[in-house]
């Protein structure tokens, strides 16, 4: 349970981190809160030669409200978002999701950017941010920036569209209108454990947005677009066990019948929460 040897650099600014990352190539790894990377290092599932600590870069630790969105710095901790829960006007789901991640001891260190970059299929942020139609801001050592939609960021388990010399700078989360509703539900065998099934739902009549995603699959979160559309158009009458199970099967044809039952139940509960929120 001891990591193999690595060198360590604490970056003070984003460009410093990116230069070191470009020089280090595949031997270098960014360290934010380390709540996933730490266990992987200790178990020697990861053996980078250089860790570039970005957790103290002030520019990555800001939460900013804009007219139509919230901008969350990549190194903002889950605990900081949990404690800001009541202030996320139009994006209350952020605080709720943050508060449900693992345990307070983990939330005090773990960051939103680290969670996205790690892309664990059972993690909360990849699912929640995909459903909220968030946009991820990336930057590389040459100073080039690009935006990737959160629902297109993870390509499969533990794999994202991040290039080797890129890092996540921030996430923009569009606000839901006052008529909007959301629901988030995950099934864990033990409180705080990684989810065995998870689902997130957003209905916003004003923005004409209807999104349902499910997570904790073998790969990235999957959209249940047709189901979302049907519920937006027909309301409760479209929320049937058959419709949900069909949507779940369609979204991930590899699920066996037990998985379909579990995921369909979790999707239904997330929808129920959105219906009454």
């Amino acid at each position, binding site marked *: *349970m001891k990591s193999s*040897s690595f*060198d360590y650099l604490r970056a003070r600014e984003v460009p410093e981190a990116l230069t070191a990352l470009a020089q280090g190539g595949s031997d270098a790894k960014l360290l934010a809160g380390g709540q996933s990377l730490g266990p992987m290092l*200790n178990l020697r599932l990861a053996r980078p030669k250089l860790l570039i*600590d970005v957790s103290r870069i002030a520019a990555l630790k800001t939460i900013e409200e804009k007219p139509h969105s919230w901008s969350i710095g990549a190194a903002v901790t889950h605990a900081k978002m949990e404690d800001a829960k009541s202030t996320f006007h139009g994006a209350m789901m952020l605080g709720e999701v943050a508060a449900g991640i693992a345990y307070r*001891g*983990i939330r005090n*260190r773990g960051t939103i950017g680290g969670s996205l970059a790690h892309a664990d299929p059972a993690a909360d942020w990849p699912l929640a941010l995909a459903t909220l139609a968030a946009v991820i801001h990336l930057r590389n050592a040459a100073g080039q920036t690009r935006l990737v939609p959160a629902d297109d960021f993870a390509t499969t388990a533990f794999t994202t569209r991040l290039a080797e010399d890129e890092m996540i700078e921030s996430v923009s989360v569009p606000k839901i209108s006052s008529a909007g509703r959301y629901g988030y539900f995950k099934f864990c065998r033990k409180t705080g454990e990684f989810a065995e099934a998870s689902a997130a739902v957003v209905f916003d009549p004003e923005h004409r947005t209807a999104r349902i995603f499910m997570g904790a699959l073998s790969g990235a979160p999957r959209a249940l677009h047709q189901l979302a559309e049907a519920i937006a158009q027909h309301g409760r009458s479209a929320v049937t066990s058959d419709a949900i199970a069909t949507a779940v099967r369609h979204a991930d044809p590899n699920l066996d019948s037990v998985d379909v039952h579990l995921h369909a139940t979790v999707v239904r509960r997330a929808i129920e929460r959105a219906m009454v929120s």
Partner: protein
Amino acid sequence: MTELNLDRKSISLVVNDRQVTAQVEPRLHLADFLRDHLRLTGTHLGCEHGVCGACTVLLDDAPVRSCITYAVACDGTKVQTIEGFEKDEDMALLRAMFSREHGLQCGFCTPGMLITSRDILRRLPQADERRVRVELSGNLCRCTGYKGIVSAVLGVIEAAHHPENKKSEVASAVAANHQEFTTFTPYAANFSSAIASTVSPEQLSEGASLDTAESTARKGWTHVEDGFVISLPPDRVWLAFLDLPLLASC
């Protein structure tokens, strides 16, 4: 980059109000730094990959798992371990309540439990039983079944809601923990003969007879078989498991 730089890094941090500087390998985690370098062995290592919570310490006043936090990343921070709460009133009360409510048995998880519990008191002073259980879910205990730990935390929360009682509650709980030493006159010279004169072997063994019969099951091994029948339905037995004072008095 192909060469691996193994240079130690210089760190400077405050541990339990004491300024500490050290040269550390980057891969040294905070718990090993505290235990092996500073000899603060109150921080316990259970799983060493962030699951069990036994190694929980305060880093800049927030509980973190010290096994997946590297010492090099703690340069310039303030760390507080279980050894650093001597003058902390919340911790004094928690210690007393853990003792009163049987919140520990082997004690391995206790440092992490106490530090997490103190954070609950400060962050969630209105927490009910369910909330306390959820908040403690990141700290594993393999002895107590959590009931005693939860009761202890709820006991402190309860006391805090009645500030007029809090002082006396603290005083009596602490007093129960620290009984004054009563002086006495011991038997003088030959200790074992003195024992022999006051306690018989029968009293020492409390009526049980020592079975010294050799087992035939395996050469050189002693085979011990034991069991007892509880003449109550299982439901009643499970109920008894919820009654800590009853269990503890067994």
